[in-house]
C-alpha cells in the first residue's frame, strides 16, 4: 500500500522532528543571551579587543617601548612616549605611553603585540562588539583600552609613587 508507506515515512520523519524539539537548542542565543557576552560563546584563547593592564599598584604596565608597534604587521599601533616624573607617575618604569592608539580598522588581531610585549601590558580581552557606523570611531585610545583601576584609585588616576609605597590611596588627577 503506497499510501500507508507514505504515512509511515512521514510519521517516522516527524517523530524525529518531534524528538528534537525536546533537545537543548544548538543555536547560539547572541544577542539575547545572558551575561556580558550576551550569549556569545568564546574559547578562552579568543583574541578580542586589547586590554592594557595595570600592575599591582594600579600603575600602567606599559612602558612605551614601542615593541608592539614594531611587531605589528599592519602598523595599527601609534604611541607617544613621555617621561614619568615624581608628581605625575603613570607607569612603573621611567617612561610611559602618553598616547596609545590602536586603529581597529587595520588591526588583524594576530596577537603579535601581545607576544612582543616585555611587560605583559597589552593583552587580548574578549571584547568583540566593535562594529561602528563611523570608521574614525574605530581608533581606540589608551583610556578606552586601559583595564579598570583598583576601586580606591579611580579610573585613569595619576599615582604618586611615595603614596602608593606607603599604602595610601593614590592621588587622583588634578582637577578631576
Amino acid at each position, binding site marked *: 500500500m503506497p499510501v500507508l508507506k507514505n504515512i509511515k515515512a512521514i510519521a517516522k520523519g516527524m517523530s524525529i522532528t518531534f524528538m528534537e524539539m525536546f533537545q537543548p537548542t544548538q543555536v547560539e542565543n547572541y544577542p539575547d543571551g545572558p551575561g556580558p557576552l550576551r550569549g556569545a560563546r568564546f574559547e578562552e584563547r579568543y583574541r578580542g579587543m586589547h586590554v592594557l593592564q595595570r600592575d599591582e599598584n594600579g600603575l600602567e604596565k606599559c612602558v612605551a617601548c614601542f615593541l608592539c608597534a614594531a611587531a605589528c604587521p599592519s602598523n595599527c599601533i601609534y604611541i607617544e612616549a613621555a617621561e614619568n616624573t615624581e608628581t605625575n607617575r603613570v607607569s612603573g618604569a*621611567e617612561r610611559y605611553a602618553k598616547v596609545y592608539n590602536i586603529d581597529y580598522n587595520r588591526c588583524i588581531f594576530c596577537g603579535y603585540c601581545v607576544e612582543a610585549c616585555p611587560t605583559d601590558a597589552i593583552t587580548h580581552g574578549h571584547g568583540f562588539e566593535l562594529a561602528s557606523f563611523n570608521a574614525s570611531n574605530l581608533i581606540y585610545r589608551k583610556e578606552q583600552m586601559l583595564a579598570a583601576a583598583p576601586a580606591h584609585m579611580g579610573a585613569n588616576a595619576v599615582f604618586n609613587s611615595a603614596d602608593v609605597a606607603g599604602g595610601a590611596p593614590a592621588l587622583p588627577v588634578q582637577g578631576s
Partner: protein
Amino acid sequence: MPDVTLTVDGKKLTAPAGTLLIEACKSAGIEIPSFCYYPNLSLQGACRMCLVKIEKMPKLQTACTTVVTEGMIVTSDNEEVRQARKSMVELLLGNHPLDCPVCDAGGECELQDMTFSYGAAESKYMEAKNHKDEQQWSPVVFFDRPRCILCYRCVRVCGEGMDVWALGVQNRGVSSIIAPNKEDHLECEECGMCIDICPVGALTSGAYRYKTRPWEMKHVGTICTHCGDGCKTTLGVRRSDSGMEIVRGDNRDKSGINNDFLCIKGRYAFDFAHHPDRLMQPLIRKNGKLTPANWEEAFELIGKRFAEIRDHDGMIGVVGSSRITNEEAYLLSKFARVVLKTNNVDHHRTADFPALAAALSGKPDSTATMREVYDAPAILLIGNNPTDQHPLLAWQIRNNVRLHRSRLYLINSQTIKLGRQAAGFTQIPAGTEGKVAAYLAGDDAAVEAIITEKNSRETWNALREKLRGEQKLVIIFGSEIRGNDVAVLVKFGSGVHGAKFVCLADYANSRGAADMGLYPDLLPGYHRVADTGKFHDEWTSIPATTGLTLPEMVDAAKASKLKALYVVGANPIGRLGLDPFLFSKTFVVVQEMFLTETAFMADVVLPAANAYEKSGTFTNTCGDLQILKKAGEVTGTKSDFEMIVRIADAMGFDVHKLVPFGAGERTDMGQSRGAQSGEADRHAVWLEARGLEPKMSPLEPTAILDEIQRLVPGYDFSRINLLAGNDQHTTLANSGPGAIQKPELIVPANDNLFSSGTLGRYSKALHSVMESRTQQTSEVAAD
C-alpha cells in the same frame, strides 16, 4: 711605511706596518667586535671583546692593541674565541639592568648586538643586581650608572677629541665608575659626544630621552643650520600633531665632512622648530594690528603693493638672509634685479668674501676645504675663536694636531682655547690683525704696531720665516681681516708653497649668500652690476647703478624715501638696534619663523620654513657645497623659495622667466618619499590652476640649480655627487672681479657655543644649558 702580509682566517691580507690588527681586519671585511676600541682615540684594551687567537702566542690577544707583523697568523673566530667573548658579555651583563624596553639605546645598543651574536643572555648570578639611581650631569646629559660597561670611550672622546677633560674615572677595579671631574655636574662644552659615542644607554641625551625608539624614526641626513661650518647632521624625525617633528640629531653614520662630530647646537638645538611662538599663518596689518590672514590674501596684497611701488619708481629695499639656501639666495637676488628692478639688495655680512674673491681671482686651488683643515701639515689661524664660533673647525684643527702632528700657528688678540694645541701662539694688541697681514706680506714697517713686550721684532721675524718655509699652509682668518687686508694676506700666501685660504663667516650659508650676490653692487659669482656680461644676457634688464646697502636703506627710510622693504629671514631692527618706528612709512614684508622685532613692525608677515624643513644646498664657510634634505615639517609654513616665486607671480611676472623649470634635469630630491611625500601634489594644484606644466615645479629649488650651475663660477659641481650627499668644493678662482667694500658693513655675529641668533633665542635646549651656567654670556646678535 712598508706593507706587511698576514693571514687572518686563512685569508692573506696586506696592511701598512703599524696598522692595528682590528683595523686591518676591518678593511678586509672581517669584523672583530669591540666596545672600548674607537678609531682615532687612544687605545684602552678594557673590554676584551676583540680577543683573537694568534699563532705562537699562548693566550688570546686583543686585536685592538696588537700591531700587525709579518707572517702573523690570526684566527678571528673559533670556539675558543667565541667562548671568551661570550664570557665577556656574561660578565658585562653581570650587573647590567635588563631594561632594554625602557632604555633609550634599545635597538641601537652595541651590547644588545653582542648578546645576540654571542649569547650569554641568561645570567648565572643569583644575587640581586646593584641598582644606583640615575644622575643628571647637565641639562642635556644623564647618566645611568648600572648600564655603564666601562669602555672609557666617553672619557677619551671628551678629553682627547674635545680637549675638555670633563669626565674621568673614579675608584679602581670593579668599583670604577665614570664621573664628572666637577663633583656632580659637567663643566664642558655640552657637545654631547659622550652620549653619541656611548655603546650602551648609560649616557642619555636630555633632548631625546624617552621620546621614541630608534626604529620608530625616519632618519634624514641634512646640514646643520647654526654656524658656518656645515656639519652634516642626521635628524631623526617622527610624526607629530603639526607635521613632522625632529626628535634627535646626530651623525652616527660618520658621513659628511664632520665624521661623527656635532656640537651642542647641531645635536640639540633643532627644537626651535616646535617652539610655541612659531608663526603658522600669514599675518597682515589691518587697522594697525597684525591679524591672521590666508596665503592668497597675503600674496595678493604684497604683489599689488610691490607692483604699484615699482611702477611709480618708488624705492624698494631687499634684505636677504645668511640662513637661506643657495637657491633661495640666488632667486632673491634675481627677483630683486629682474622683478623689482632694483639693486637695493643686502644681507647681514659677517666676512669679506668679495674682497677674498677679488684677491683670489685667477688663482686655482687656493681655498681649503674643511677636510683639508684636518690633513694640512701646517695651519695659520689669525683672529676668531673657532672653539666658540666654529666648533667643527676647532675639532678639525685639534685632531689634526693630535693625530697628524700638524703645526698650528696662532695669532690672536686674546688667549683662546686652541692655544693649547698651538705650536706657536702670538698675542697681538686688539685690532691689529691687518698689520699682521701686512707684516707677513713683507711690509716691515707694519711690525711697529704688533710689537709687544712678549713679541719683539725678532720673534715676528722668526715667525714669518717659519711660515714662509711651510708647505701646504692653510691660512684661516676671521672677520678681523677685511677689505684691503685680505688682498695683503693673499699676497703673503702666494709666497708660501701650496698655501690655501679659509675665510670664516658666521652663519650657515653666509658664504652662499655672498656667492649668490646678495649685494647692492655684486651679482652672483661676484660680478659687478655695472659690467655687462652673462647675467645681463640671461636675466636681461639689470639696473646698472649700484644699489643701497642696508645702512643706506635705513637712511632712506628715515628720509621717507624707502617705499617698501622686503626682508627674507633677517632681523635688521633687532640686530642694528634701530628705532622700531623707523619703517612706519614703508611697506614692510617679512618672511620669518617668529615674530622678531622686525616682523613685529611689518605690514605683512609670512611664516617661513627653516633649513631643516626644506631642500636645497648650503655652502659652508670653506666653500664646501652640500645638500639639504627636508626633515621636519610644520603645517602652515612655506619655504622662502616658494614665497618668492608666489610673490613674483602675484606681481604679474611670468614665473617661467624667473625659474627655468620644465627644462633641464629632472631630479627627485626625495619629494616622492617619506617626510616629503605629497609635496609634489600640493604644488601641482597651484600649477594646474595657472596652466603651467607640472613636470617640474617652479616651487622646487632644483629648478634653479641648473641655472646656478651654468652661471655662477665655481658652482660647476657634479650633480650626482651632490645628490649622493657628498661635499663638493666651490672655488673662487673664476669669480667675477669682486669688490673692495666698506669694511664697517661687516658685523660678526658674536655667537658663542650656546647661542645662535634668532634660532638660539627660541631653542629650549640652548636656554636650559645657558641657565644652568653661572657664567655670563656675551651679548648676541639678533639674526
